[in-house]
């Protein structure tokens, strides 16, 4: 087949046409919605200006799905949602129907098929996660496994709306952080410089690109066994792993020395406060497959303090802004340490340049 003559001429259309994929009620009331309600966790009810009603049922998937799973979801969509379905930006699947009586059976069928319903309103929605050992070429951890383990632990709060506001989690399998900012993020953290594999370097490395990739100019050309190679000035290196993305010979990953760190208070919406970057609150957690229990425990601590203390509509970072970082560390029992003080480019702007202190 691979050698058979190709008869098809590529059509470079970019994104697929949307028209044929929209639910008829969506199409009819396109851009003319009035308001929404949340009848129960996992279900939205949107009301159009025309008076039309559209129920949405949101269910979890594990993102790394299969043709079998997709076909099963299609079966449910054919049965309960007029043959349409969509995915959310957090890998949840959504079924829409104007028929209120379809909602409960759909929920039952989804849960029977292993797709719990939830993730709406002030709940913990699915984790936005990345590729990990399953596919990426630079991961220090498996993203799908970490995500699965955490969601098993926090499951109650996916299926219930009991948080002060929505909680968004991400996990990322290297410091590059494809998972992005979140209320709570679990990100790989390296604790030592890359070891250079001089054997393969000459063959696999575009050396000038690799040198340029380093944010602190710690990589220098050198000669090893008479061959051109690279070296790392270890005092300068900040263990970021960026060079490994450029060149597989810059071996940053290590079963012991690649750890996990926890970040909190990221926020993307503009509601109330401006979007905010997440901040480091724990690091050096062991890379402990298959369940990474230390991570789950810590997330539970953070979320239960937030659940207990946060006010309605306060996102996690807003709750901390109100009570102060000192109390955040007290109430979660996490230790603050000197590494959590920024010493990178804009460090100064994070210093407490005031006499505002909580005692």
């Amino acid at each position, binding site marked *: 087949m691979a050698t058979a003559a190709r008869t*098809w001429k590529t059509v470079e259309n*970019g*994104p697929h046409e949307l028209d044929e994929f929209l639910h008829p009620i969506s199409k009819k009331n396109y851009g003319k919605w009035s308001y929404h309600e949340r009848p129960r966790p996992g279900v939205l009810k949107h009301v159009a200006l025309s008076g039309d009603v559209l129920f949405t049922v949101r269910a979890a998937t594990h993102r790394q*799905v299969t043709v079998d799973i997709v076909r099963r979801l299609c079966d449910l969509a054919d049965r309960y949602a007029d043959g349409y379905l969509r995915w959310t930006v957090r890998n949840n699947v959504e079924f829409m129907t104007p028929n209120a009586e379809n909602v409960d059976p759909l929920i039952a069928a989804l849960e029977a098929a292993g797709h719990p319903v939830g993730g709406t309103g002030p709940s913990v929605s699915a984790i936005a996660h990345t590729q990990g050992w399953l596919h990426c070429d630079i991961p220090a951890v498996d993203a799908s496994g970490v995500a699965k383990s955490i969601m098993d632990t926090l*499951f109650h709060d996916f299926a219930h709306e009991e948080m002060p506001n929505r909680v968004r989690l991400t996990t990322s399998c290297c410091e590059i952080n494809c998972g992005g*900012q979140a209320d709570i993020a679990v990100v790989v953290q390296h604790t030592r410089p890359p070891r250079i594999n001089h054997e393969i370097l000459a063959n696999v490395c575009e050396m000038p690109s690799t040198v340029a990739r380093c944010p602190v100019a710690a990589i220098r050309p050198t000669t090893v066994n008479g061959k051109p190679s690279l070296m790392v000035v270890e005092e300068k290196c900040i263990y970021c792993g960026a060079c490994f993305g450029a060149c597989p010979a810059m071996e940053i990953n*290590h079963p012991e020395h690649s750890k996990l760190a926890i970040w909190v208070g990221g926020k993307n919406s503009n*509601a109330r406060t401006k979007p905010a970057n997440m901040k480091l609150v724990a690091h050096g957690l062991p890379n402990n497959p298959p369940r990474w229990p230390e991570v789950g425990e810590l997330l539970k601590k953070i979320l239960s303090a937030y659940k207990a203390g946060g006010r309605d*509509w306060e996102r996690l970072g807003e709750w901390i802004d109100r009570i102060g970082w000192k109390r955040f560390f007290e109430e979660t029992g996490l230790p603050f340490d000197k590494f959590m003080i920024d010493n990178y480019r804009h460090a100064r702007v994070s210093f407490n340049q005031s006499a505002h202190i909580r005692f």
Partner: protein
Amino acid sequence: MSEQEQQKDQSFQLNPTPMLDDLENGPWPSFIKGFKETAQRTGKTMVRGVLDQLNYSYETRMGYWKGGVVGVHGYGAGIISRYSMISDKFPEATEFHTMRIQPAPGLHYSTKSLRHICDVWEKYGSGLISMHGQTGNLQLQGIKAEYVQACFDELNQEGWDLGGAGATVRTGLSCVGPARCEQACYDTLHAHGKVLSYYSDLTHRPQLPYKAKFKFSGCPNDCTNSIQRSDYSVIGTWRDDIKINEAEVEKFIAAKGVDYLVNNVITRCPTKAITLQGGKMVIDNRDCVRCMHCLNVMPKALSPGDDRGITLLVGGKGHLKVGNMLGSVMVPFMKMDTEEDMDAFIELVDRMIDYWSENGLDHERIGECIERVGIQQFLDAVGLEASVEMVSHPRDNPFFKAGEYSTDEEDRDAA
């Protein structure tokens, strides 16, 4: 011969994966369970190999994939090639390439279209799908290089195109917007479709300093996380007053009480634009920054105004080099109603991409580029006026060069 056509070995059996098996437990859907199911049913050895290698990764706590070059005819991007570094140990996992497919805006599907994808994918590939990647691609995960072109051709005939990778425009992401949401201030789905189609060439053939992402959110709730995760963050907003349904406001207060109104609406407004006057809420729209909070709490009573459009924020990106960079306002407001509006938008973004293409360093995102050259130069080059809405506050240091200075010698002497 496609994978599917290979005779299924009747004695197909998965190997022990003790570390992974633990992940089959618990209430959350298990990807391991899913993989095993598909492997068992189809007898795909690639999936068995991948499970074996993954189990080995769990044991050794190291990854074992390396990249290479795999593509389709005429394109320079869109396939992420993966070769096992330990294929001697796991020969079945030797190749495990991913095809990045651009879904429709808003990640909508018909079951018909999805079933077709599944059929093609089961024919040529592993049957594993990542749905969706963080950038918004439908990721068909696990195919051998030899089947890539055929698989693509079959999909392309049904309107599916590849997404970006490397130094290209990447697949876009849009919120559900007008399809279902009352807050949508512009047609995120149409804008997404139009803009990304326009950039197909730049998506398929690496010609840029580095990647460029678009995300489209219908309102400042920013359900696509665009400010954080895209070079071009297109967020719906409005210029006139918030629309108020007085009857619904009264119902809200009657149902929830004044305390609730004060504690959950009034005191949460970031700019104190709302005050309580005689037990009623009064919004001073001049002070409103369109944060969405009051509209979120009272969706029946409050709605975006009628004079709608978008704010364009530029420069969002991840951790690399500079630490996380949020996009920042480049166009405080522009209309986005008509095709002409969208053309004007594309024209503007074209100027930005052009400037960046010429001035960006290798592997430098546009946000980093603007930071390096200074925003003044960028604004001049793309023909934008400085606006105070681009900043949280004016500069607090005196290190700027305002105006032209004379270089003639006479002037030098006068000094």
